[in-house]
Structures are given as structure tokens and as C-alpha cells.
């Protein structure tokens, strides 16, 4: 098409094409960047406006001479320079100058002299306060607790409401989120459980699919085609239909709230059998016939001859099985008691943790990053097999 042409117009088209592709790629990648950055943030840093992609830490100062030990540095909208919070538990009073023209003034709670006058309108005491060297009449709006701030280079201290200041932030990822979510939020156990289930399902699916696929592809037995149609038809059945009876079956086997309920029913894969069958059909039968004439048993032929040849299909099957088992959510949600931390899976624990009442957003994101990394890595490494086979078989 046009990108293969030459000339200035073609160059223009080519640049436009790449711009479009990159824009879409950005759309795909951006949420992941948000996830990674959020997973390394402090919780207070997540809920700041405007949102930021950089994990930031509050700037702090330590200076033994001035008795500062990790005190936070603040900015004020209406004052220049940086201010160190020396003490955040100072009694303060907010004064409103009489007349209502000037802004409220925050001073120490004992500041201002009582003039003895009383406001006519609402019966408030009138104080004489000092604003920039001028005495101003004001009423005391409220008493509160605030901070004592000092210029970062030293100088006169001021009192001000802490909420009027914004802490200075600088780049500072918080890697402790990851060990914290693994240890405190029980994600470690969920990770190993998910790993166990995934490995068991993948290995089981590979074994049963190889055996079944070989039987369908290479042994011409009575009733084969009918059974195969049954398998093909089963791919059309949505899992939703099976949820209730399967749950009932697990109840009778006493497998509820046990990881085995996530493994055994899923090691029999009609789809995997189909995939292996298709691959075995593509292997020339001369290879097998030669081995048969040499007196090898079918069992030996399958494992010594066919399976080594079928490595790409097995790799694809393993990738599918991995992604399916690792990411599965609905069935675990039904069968595993979410209150039992010993049987948690990554998806379940994350759903509970990041659910509607979540508080530790940074930890939730650290968990999400941990959960998403293995499937993405597996996909990137196994891409060749995976993409080819999803295109030819259409598994979702």
C-alpha cells in the first residue's frame, strides 16, 4: 500500500501512519505507566491534584544545630521561599479584621489585645492585632491548632495553618510498597497459591491434551468422529452454564474452599485437545509408520517422536493455560472463601484489597503490578507461539 511508495507525499503519509500507531500505543501503555508509578507512590501522593506520573516524596530537612530532624518543607501560596515545619501542634487563632475588607489573619492563640469593645452586630469581642506592623481591629473567628514555620535558611518564625501550606515534593519512589503488600496484605501466600494452581493446570492440560490429541489425530477408532464432534461442541458452551452444577459437584466432593477445585476440573481441556490434534495432523505420517515398523509401541512413538516435534504447539498450549489459570477470577470467586487467607489467589486478594472500601491504594497498585508482570513477561517471551495460535484458533 501507500507506505511502499516513494516521494514527499509518501514520506508525509509514513510519518502520519507512525504518528497514529504511536498514539494508539501510548493509549495502551499509559495506564500501565500510571499503574507502575502509583505502585511506587505514597498514599498521600496519589490523591493530589493535578495527578502526577512521578512518584514523589515530601522534601525534608535535617539539621542538628537547628534541632531539625526530617522536618517537612512547605510552600505557601502567598509567601516567598520555602518553610520548614518546626512544630505542628501550636494553638492558633484566626482573626477577621473589622470591616470585612481584608483577608483573615492567623496568629498565635494568645496574640492580640482585647480592646474591650464588642461588635454591635454579633456580640463578638474586638481585638487589636498586629498586621505587618500596623495595629488592626479584628474579631477572633476561631481557635485552632496549626504549625510553627521557619524559613529554610533560618530567620523569623511564623505561625500558620498547616492546611494553608503545600508540602514540597521531589522524586522519591517508595519501593517498600512491594514487600509491604506481600507481607502485610497476604499477597505472598496468594502469589504462591496462584503459582501452584497455574503450574498444575498447565502441566495437567499438556498431558491430557497430548494424549487426547494423539488419539483423535492418529488412531482411527470406532466412534472417534462422534466423540470429536462432542468436544468441538463443548467449546461453544459458555462457562456460566457450568458454574452452578460444578459448584454443587465440589460441595459433594468436599472440595470447596480448596485449591484442588481450581486445578482438577481444569486439567481436561477440550480446546487443548483440539489444538494438539490439529498439530499432530500436520506431522507427516511416514515418520510414525517408520517407527511402527521398527516395532515401537504407540506410547513410545507418541513421547519419543511426536511430542518433540510438537514443541511449538505445546508451547502455545502452555502459554494459553498459563494466562487462563493465572488470570481466572470468576470460578475462584465462587469456590474460594474470600475470608480465608490460606486459599487466596492473586486475583481474589486484589479484588478484595482494591474493592470498593480500599484504603491503601498504593499497596493495591503494588499488588496489581506484581500480578500483571508474570503474564506480560510470559506473553512477551512466548509471543511467537501465542500470537500464531490465537490467530488460527480464536481462543479468548
Amino acid at each position, binding site marked *: 500500500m501507500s507506505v511502499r511508495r516513494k516521494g514527499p507525499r509518501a514520506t508525509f*503519509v509514513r510519518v502520519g501512519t507512525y504518528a497514529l*500507531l504511536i498514539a*494508539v*500505543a501510548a493509549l*495502551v501503555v499509559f*495506564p*500501565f505507566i500510571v*499503574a507502575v508509578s502509583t505502585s511506587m507512590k505514597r498514599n498521600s501522593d*496519589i490523591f493530589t*491534584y*493535578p495527578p502526577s506520573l512521578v512518584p514523589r516524596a515530601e522534601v525534608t530537612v535535617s539539621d542538628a544545630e537547628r534541632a531539625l530532624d526530617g522536618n517537612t518543607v512547605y510552600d505557601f501560596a502567598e509567601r516567598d521561599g520555602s518553610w520548614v515545619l518546626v512544630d505542628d501542634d501550636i494553638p492558633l487563632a484566626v482573626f477577621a479584621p473589622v470591616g470585612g475588607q481584608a483577608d483573615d489573619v492567623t496568629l498565635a492563640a494568645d496574640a492580640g489585645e482585647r480592646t474591650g469593645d464588642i461588635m454591635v452586630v454579633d456580640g463578638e469581642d474586638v481585638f487589636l492585632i498586629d498586621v505587618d506592623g500596623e495595629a488592626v481591629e479584628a474579631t477572633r473567628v476561631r481557635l485552632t491548632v496549626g504549625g510553627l514555620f521557619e524559613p529554610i535558611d533560618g530567620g523569623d518564625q511564623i505561625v500558620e495553618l498547616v492546611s494553608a501550606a503545600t508540602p514540597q515534593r521531589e522524586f522519591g519512589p517508595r519501593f517498600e510498597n512491594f514487600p509491604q503488600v506481600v507481607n502485610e496484605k497476604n499477597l*505472598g501466600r496468594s502469589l*504462591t497459591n496462584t503459582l501452584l494452581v497455574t503450574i498444575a493446570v498447565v502441566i495437567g492440560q499438556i*498431558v*491430557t491434551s497430548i*494424549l487426547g490429541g494423539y*488419539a483423535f489425530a492418529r*488412531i482411527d*477408532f*470406532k466412534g472417534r468422529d462422534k*466423540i470429536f464432534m462432542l468436544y468441538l461442541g*463443548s467449546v*461453544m458452551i*459458555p462457562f*456460566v*452454564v*457450568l*458454574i*452452578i452444577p460444578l*459448584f*454443587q*459437584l465440589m460441595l*459433594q*466432593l468436599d*472440595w470447596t474452599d*480448596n*485449591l484442588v477445585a481450581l*486445578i*482438577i476440573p481444569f486439567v*481436561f481441556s477440550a480446546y487443548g485437545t483440539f489444538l494438539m490434534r490439529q498439530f499432530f495432523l500436520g506431522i507427516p505420517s511416514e515418520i510414525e509408520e517408520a517407527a511402527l515398523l521398527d*516395532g*515401537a*509401541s*504407540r506410547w513410545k512413538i*507418541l513421547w519419543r517422536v511426536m511430542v518433540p516435534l510438537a514443541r511449538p504447539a505445546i508451547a502455545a498450549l502452555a502459554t494459553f493455560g498459563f494466562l487462563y489459570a493465572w*488470570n481466572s477470577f470468576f470460578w475462584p470467586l465462587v469456590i474460594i472463601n474470600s475470608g480465608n487467607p*490460606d*486459599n487466596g489467589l492473586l486475583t481474589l486478594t486484589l*479484588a478484595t484489597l*482494591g474493592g*470498593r472500601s480500599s484504603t491503601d491504594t498504593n499497596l493495591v*497498585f503494588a499488588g*496489581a503490578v506484581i500480578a500483571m508482570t508474570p*503474564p*506480560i513477561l510470559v*506473553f*512477551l517471551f512466548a509471543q511467537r507461539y501465542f500470537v500464531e495460535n*490465537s490467530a*488460527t484458533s480464536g481462543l*479468548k
Partner: protein
Amino acid sequence: MNPGVTMAFDADHEIMAPTSASEHEPTVALHRGLTLVTLWHVLGVVAGAAMMLLARRGGDQELPGTIGVALQFFAIAAFATHAYAAYGIRTRRHHARSASLVVNYLTFVVAAVAVLHQFGAFRAIGSLGEGLNKAFIPFLVAAIGLVWILVAGQISTSRPAAKSPPALRRAGQVLVVVGSAWFVIAADPTGMFSAITDQITSPLTLASIGLAAGALVATRFMWHRDVGRLFGTTSSEERTLSGLAFLSPNLIGFLFFFAGPLVFSLIVSFFDWKTTGTSRSFVGIDNYVEALSIDFASSASANAGVEALKPGYQVLMHLDWFGQNWLIGARDVTFWLSLRNIIVFLVLAVPLSVLPALGLSSILASELPRAKIFRAIYFVPSVAGVIGVAIIWGQMFQSTVGWINYIIKRAGDILPFVDAPSEGHPWLSSNSTALLAMVIVFAWMNFGFNTVLYLAGHQAIPKDLYEAAEIDGARTWKIFRRITVPQLRNTTFYVLITTSILALQLFDIVWILSTPQPGGPDNATMTPVIALYNEAFRNNNRGYASALAWVLFIIIFGFTFAQFRRDRDAATPGGVS
């Protein structure tokens, strides 16, 4: 042990191999073995009868189709087949060998599974999680060793001359061995063994072990070639037996965990079956009627309520149609709302995840350098895991500090026509946009997958079509319109169907993202699967929920069937099924 059986063990290593023994006449050992197998079958008749009685005991509390009934059927079949096999082997009937093999094999499987079940071996698989958790680091060591060996193998095949691979491989093997040993020590499996030794004294367990062992030995003996010759087994029968043997692990699981439950589900859907109470009565199609009943009423005022409808119906929606107010009521309002939602979702989400895929795949298919990188990037959302993705998007849609609102606001600052609300819009807790948010997440997750499906479709388009068009000087757009799109017709159909089937089963995204409860706010994101989940596992209304599942299945089946019909009609290249 009997000499005939030992012989079978020794000579049986190569089943299909022409062994020297096969050239001889049937030996004395063979006959003695057959006598033993006959006796075994007589024992099997007794065991079958015993099992029939045992399975009956627990069978009357549950609905038909449960394990007890299945076991009873199996026991009856086993009883009959054992009897036939005993008689047939004695009289050298032609089919006796096949019958004996099948019944022995199945007896072995059932008995072995029963033993494992009594040992709690299956539940013990679940407890492995604890071991793996304790021994995670040794596990990693062993896994790294395994990968190491694979990599070394790769290197040695690509560069046979290199000297280092054997050393690498050795190092990997050491890692695997050390890791595995460490793993076993760290995982501390003693608890599992103690559970097994506790159970072994139970008489039922001992009987099952005996049954499994005997059936296994008998199977191995009867499988032998010489026995086959004796009974005149044809090569076609031999093939059937091996075919079923290879298929059996798969087929047994398929029947037990798929076909059986499927039938059970259909049966349950005709019962009023609540797990809270004891009522399990057959109600015919009442569950389906309850789910699907709707009622129309015309009313004078726009605010007419339940009183205008038949009793038992609730207001589903008001319609203003040509000045006439219509009231639509349903018995299960939630389910109908979920159907309405899913149709809206389908109409929005499917084009949004298919059309970009069509466009992008057309660009990527045009021999563009670096196309594979883009293809990989676009694919990532569909493999990253829906829970993680939903959590990310939950933060993106956050009303005050979320990126979506921030970007809209910044766009509003630059572009005059973007009307950004001053307050952050609560995407997920607003009735009007909650479903739209789900559409966006769904499309974001699935367009990359569809792009790859389309790329496969592109490969099937004959290249000379494009060459001819270029010689004619056709514009890119025209080529796309006139060649690409029509040639991809089958792929498009396939992609549309698979995406629709996926969309109809929407669950996980909504489960994570909707507030304040799944399906919220005000059922604005209620989907059929969530409605089903609530009925089955919150209200414990399993019979009714099964009916909902079948209604949903029929809807999905409509799409699948369309796909199937088309596949059969047009088995042409370009379709990727």
C-alpha cells in the same frame, strides 16, 4: 504372585512389538492367567453388587444426576460387564477380552480415585499451597536451574561447536537438584504422610486398594498381545481399544467435569431449588417463565406505577411513544435491566473493539518496519489480567484526581469546543456514565487481540489484488474500501461474533469497577452474569439461577450458531476459524 501375571508384567513392556512369545502356541501360563482373571471377574461381580448397595445408601437426599446416582449406574454396569467377562473368558467369546479390558480399566480408575479421595489426596493438593509458600525460594532456585538447562540446550543446538553448554547444563542440573532437595526439606511434607497413614486402616480403603490393584494387574494381563490373539481380536478392535485408552484420561475428565454438570444444570433449571430451605420440587418451566415474563400497560400519566401492571410485576421502564405513555413491567426486573444493559454494552463495546482493530491491522499488515513491536504492545492489555486492568482504570476514572477528568480538563483549556465540567465528573458512580466506563475498559482490553485476528485474515488476501490496484493508481482509501474490507469479510464476521460472545458474559470488569455494589449504581451496570451470581450465591436460589444461565446460553448460542453456520457454508480462506 501367580506366574502368569508375572509373565504379563515382564513381557508387556512393548505392547505392539512382535515379541518372540507371540509365535508360540498359547502357553500354560497364559491359560492359568486367564483362569485367574475369570476368578477376578467373579470377585468383580460381588464387588459391583456391594458397591450398588453402598451407593444407594447416600443417594436419596440429593437430586438425580449426583455422584451417588452416577456411582449406582456405574455399579450396575460393572456388575453386568464383570459377569459377562467371567462367562466370556471361560467360553472364549470374541468380545470377552474387550469387555474385560474396559471394565477392569474403569474399575481401576474408580477404585483408585476413591482411594485417593479417602486419603484426602485431592484436598492435600490444596495444602501444597502452604508448602510452596514456605519453600518459595528453593522453588525459584530449582525453576531457574530448569530454565538454565533449557537455555543451554538452545545454545548447544544453535552453536554445536561451543564448549560451554555442557558446563552450563551441568550447573543447571546442580541447581535443580539442590533446589528440589531444599524444597522438599523446606516444604515439610510430613503432615501429608501422616494423614495418609491415618486412613490406611479403614476397611473400605483397604478394599478399594485391593480392587484398584487387582483391576490394574488384570488390565495389564488382558492387554497382552497373546491374549488378543487367543480371542481373535481384529486390528480394528485393537485400534479402538488403544484409541480409547489414549483418550481416556481426557474423556473421563470431560464427562465428569463437563458433560455431567451440563446435564445436571439443565435438570436443576426445572426445579425450585433453594439451598437455604429443603424445598426441591419440580416446577416445570416456571423458572423460565419467571425470568422472561414482561407486561405492557398503557397509562394516562407518565408516573403510573405498579398498580397498572398485573400482580407480581414490577416497573421496568416508562416509554413515551407517540404521545402515549407506556409502562413496561417485568417479574424479574433486575434480569431484564441486565439484558437491557448488556445490549447497550454490546452495541457500544463491540464496534469500539473491532473497528480500530480493522484499521490498525490494515496499517500493520502493509509491510511496515517495526510492525511487530506495535502488534505486541497492542496485545498486552488482553493478557495482563482483567483484575489488574480494572484496578488501574478505577484510578483513571477517579473523579477528583483521576487522569481521565484531568485530561478532559486540560483539553478543555486548549480546545474551545471541549466543554469540561468544572467539578470532576464521577464516571463510575454516575448512572449515565458507569456503563460507558465499562465499555471503554472492555474495548481497551480487546482491540489488540482483534487486531491480531485481523492480521491473520490479512495474510490470506492475495497480494496480486493490491499490486493490480496500485498499477491502476488507486488511492489508499479506495484500496482499503474496495479490497481490504471485502476480502476480510469472513474475519470480520468471526471477530464480531467472538467479541460479542465475550461481551455478553461481561462480569469481572463490572465486579471490580461498579459502585457501591456490583452492578451499581442503581443497576446501571447490572449484567446477566452478575444477576446470575447474585441469585445463585447470594440468594441461594440455584434452580432459578440455572434457568437464567440457560437463557443466557441460548442468547450466546445464537451468536455461536451463526458463526458455525457461516463456517460450514463458506469454508474459504480468509476465515480464521
